[in-house]
């Protein structure tokens, strides 16, 4: 065998590199992380807009945790705009991606309110760059505008004083009007993210003033201990201060129309679901997420009706004794219809590799069973469906749902 050069061990290699590398020698410096982007077959990989769009979608698909990617998009966009303002200030897709990335970068500056506002403000200015009014009405620019407004309200609009309340509500309504579900498949994910943001905002409005936010993973703590006891430093849930809502506060104004806003959000999601094809990149996953959110919105709508019905049906409260049987039946009918719709969307959202989606479906079956005639064949069948799903999920998630299952089997 011929003489071959031989490497040294990992530790010695590192020491050697340290010893040998002169301070000014950059040759040993680790290379900047390289990212390989896959563009669609019919697209030009050299096209700057294609590259920016791909980077933006890579950021969204990657769990939205890379500010490096966002900085890459922002820096590249800034450079392109500086070098050829005439060309890029008239390109709505370029401006939309630039603004979306910049606004998203604001999310990484939670501890620097000034910088956060600056990013969002600059992002809004970008959307007004086209001189012609028609150009400013481009659907992608309008989508970006909606996203930034929802985000702005979520981050700092709800804390505004009453004098700004009308303005915040007007901004919200403006963002609703500006929003439309795009036909342009590469921006379906951005459309979903915008609706998700609107949903988050409405959820905050709904929970505002309640003593506690729902802790993450609460499904695991499945018993019914008083959540009020879980206050203080021991509870990692974000404790929201109990406040009485001033009727002129932005939150109160938004809360008044909450059901309508939630219904709008749900309808837009349904529209988006119709436009997204399972064949497109990330299509199945996106459809799952859309349907999951629609299902949650139906369940949210059903919840007060179900609660009222169960109270009238099973509690011995004297106040409930006079309840009209027809009204009780109507309550049940409405709650059943909404829960049924929720179930159909949770079925569409089922991911064969994600037990959490099976559990969500199982829990909606339990809700459905609770509305059905007690101890009826129909109810038993519904509970059995829930039990099967929970058992399957418990195996797949290494006993994570043991307590939920035990509660069901009671």
């Amino acid at each position, binding site marked *: 065998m011929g003489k071959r050069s031989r490497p040294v061990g990992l530790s010695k290699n590192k020491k050697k590199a340290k010893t040998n590398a002169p301070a000014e020698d950059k040759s040993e410096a680790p290379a900047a992380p390289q990212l390989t982007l896959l563009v669609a077959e019919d697209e030009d990989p050299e096209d700057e807009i294609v590259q920016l769009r791909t980077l933006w979608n890579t950021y969204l698909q990657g769990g939205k945790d890379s500010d490096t990617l966002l900085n890459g998009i922002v820096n590249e966009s800034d450079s392109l705009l500086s070098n050829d303002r005439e060309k890029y200030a008239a390109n709505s897709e370029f401006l939309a991606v630039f603004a979306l990335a910049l606004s998203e970068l604001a999310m990484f500056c939670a501890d620097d309110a000034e910088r956060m506002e600056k990013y969002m403000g600059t992002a809004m200015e970008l959307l007004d760059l086209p001189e012609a009014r028609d150009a400013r009405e481009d659907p992608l620019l309008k989508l970006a505008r909606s996203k930034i407004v929802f985000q702005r309200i979520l981050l700092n609009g709800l804390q505004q004083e009453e004098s700004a309340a009308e303005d915040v509500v007007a901004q919200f309504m403006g963002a609703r009007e500006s929003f439309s579900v795009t036909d342009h498949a590469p921006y379906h994910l951005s459309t979903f993210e915008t609706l998700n943001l609107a949903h988050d905002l409405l959820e905050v409005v709904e929970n505002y003033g309640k003593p506690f936010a729902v802790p993450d*993973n609460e499904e695991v703590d499945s018993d019914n201990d008083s959540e009020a006891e879980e206050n203080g430093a021991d509870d*990692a*849930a974000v404790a929201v201060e109990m406040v009485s809502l001033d009727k002129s506060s932005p939150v109160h104004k938004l809360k008044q129309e909450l059901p309508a806003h939630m219904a709008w959000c749900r309808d837009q999601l349904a529209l988006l679901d119709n436009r997204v094809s399972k064949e497109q990149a990330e299509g199945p996953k996106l459809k799952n997420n859309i349907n999951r959110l629609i299902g949650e919105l139906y369940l949210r709508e059903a919840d007060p009706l179900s609660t009222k019905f169960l109270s009238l049906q099973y509690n011995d409260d004297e106040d409930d004794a006079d309840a009209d049987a027809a009204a009780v039946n109507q309550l049940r009918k409405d709650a059943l219809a909404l829960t049924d719709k929720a179930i159909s969307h949770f079925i569409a959202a089922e991911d*064969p590799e994600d037990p959490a989606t099976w559990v969500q479906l199982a829990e909606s079956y339990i809700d459905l069973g609770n509305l059905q005639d007690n101890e009826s064949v129909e109810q038993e069948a519904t509970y059995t469906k829930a039990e099967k799903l929970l058992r399957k999920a418990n195996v797949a998630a290494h006993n994570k749902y043991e307590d939920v299952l035990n509660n069901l089997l009671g």
Partner: protein
Amino acid sequence: MKRSNVGAAATSKKPSITDRKLFNDKVWDTQFTKDLQNTIADSKPFQWGCVQDLLEPTFLAKVKTEILQNIHFTLKETDIYKLNQTGDLANLSKLGSDELQSKLPHVWQLRQLIYSDEFRNFISTVTQCGPLSGVKTDLSCHIYDKHCHLLNHDDVVGSRRVSFILYLNDPHHQWKDHYGGNLRLFDTVTKDIPLSDPVAKLLPKFNQYAFFKVQPGYSFHDVEEVRINKKRLSIQGWFHIPQNGEVGYNKGEEEKWCKSICQIDEKKLKDYTFPKRAPATVQPLSDSLDLTEEDIRILGEFIAPHFLNKDKLESLRDQFLNNSYISVVDFLNDAKAGVLSKLIKDNELNVQMPTKQTEIAQPWDLARPPHQWQFLYLEEKNNTNASKFTHLDKELAGLSSFFKSLPFQKFVIKVTGLTPLTVSSLVRRFRPGFDYMLADKTELNKALENVMDCVLEGTLCLTPMDGWDTNSVGGYELYMTAENEEKNEWNDEDPTVVGRDGDSTLINKPASWNSFNLVLRDQDVLEFVKYVSWDAKCSRWDLKLKWDLLDDDDDDEE
């Protein structure tokens, strides 16, 4: 000892009568003491005890408030733990009495109470452990929140005589078993060898004081992972052997104790360590190292085709020579990867994961003892088990055989320029909520001649589900330099602290699908696989390879 502070506490005052009243009266009751002493003497798996409602609850509530308002906690992670420790107040004993008294008066008072003559006598009596030091104090605060844990160990470090934990979790909310965060105690097979499954479990409760006698080779315990978003705050510490000038001081006792705990019976440890790895000798290689057409065909049955072309092999070789390490993705070809992905996912989603040693069915076994490592491994060689091999087991065993085959050794030679003498492989599964491999150095094969002072290690990671990139659910494989040899579970200088010093980490590789790496590992490089969180979507699956290498270099390149 790094943590204890004799000087600061040497001036400590004995608690006043008022202080004594801060304890629950039962502590001073003779019958209670006697009963507790009997309970501890009979306790299993080793001598431990527990006092409920130890202190006056409003006083303890003030201690808690003081800690949460004044002490900064930092998340710290090593091979053995992940928890929130106090920063510069990590060891309360590092503060002088005056400083502690002015900044944290109730914490200071608590320390005085715990190390008071009366309370030390109580602990000494009920545990029958002999006298305890009042000047060598050792106290710290920890918060275990979601994903935090402390793996199996026996607390035997230096002059520790009794370990204790005072729980400060929410007094108004009962901590439940399924939150995790429980103190678990392990019995032993024999001295120094803990069993894998716990035999006792203690749920945290406000004002509960748990303690046990530090018994070298026996007092094995852990803190199970906290599974949900709740915080478990505690003060924990140790009582030590009396110091010079104290009642009960015996000259040379501490030195003798420390010497005795350092004596590890290597042979016994080896006897009780599983798996036993018997490396196979690589067949003598022919003069030509070139891959033949038949070799390429065999390699192509497993490896993606682009890794087999000449340019790629040369490029990998250059990378390995420069870095002593290569890491590639999509290593197995699509067909092989597809079959394995389907089978592993199917196993994860449809087969009940064993959670106790007795539930583990052949051909799988449990790597143990748990103060060293814990994971499932495939027993490939046991022919009597052949009928018990599932389709997945057969595929994994086949993969393992391939990596030990002659064509693959030639591939390794092409990529690394090194000559393997032996090769061993192990199919491993690290279960969420259970498994890990603590940091250890590698051993050279002393039975071989002309063996290189490094080993080559390979890992084919076959973890089919995502969610590992941020390391928050563990399961990553980490190589690091062992510059600091001293290690105990809370040592600030512990070499395995992740992220403490970027310079000490050589490789940090999250679990992933179909990635392969090769590392030329020096003897002093530590490696561990981080405990896989209960929250991980699936187990970490991998195939671990190790080669002893021929020292065929005339010139030492160092």
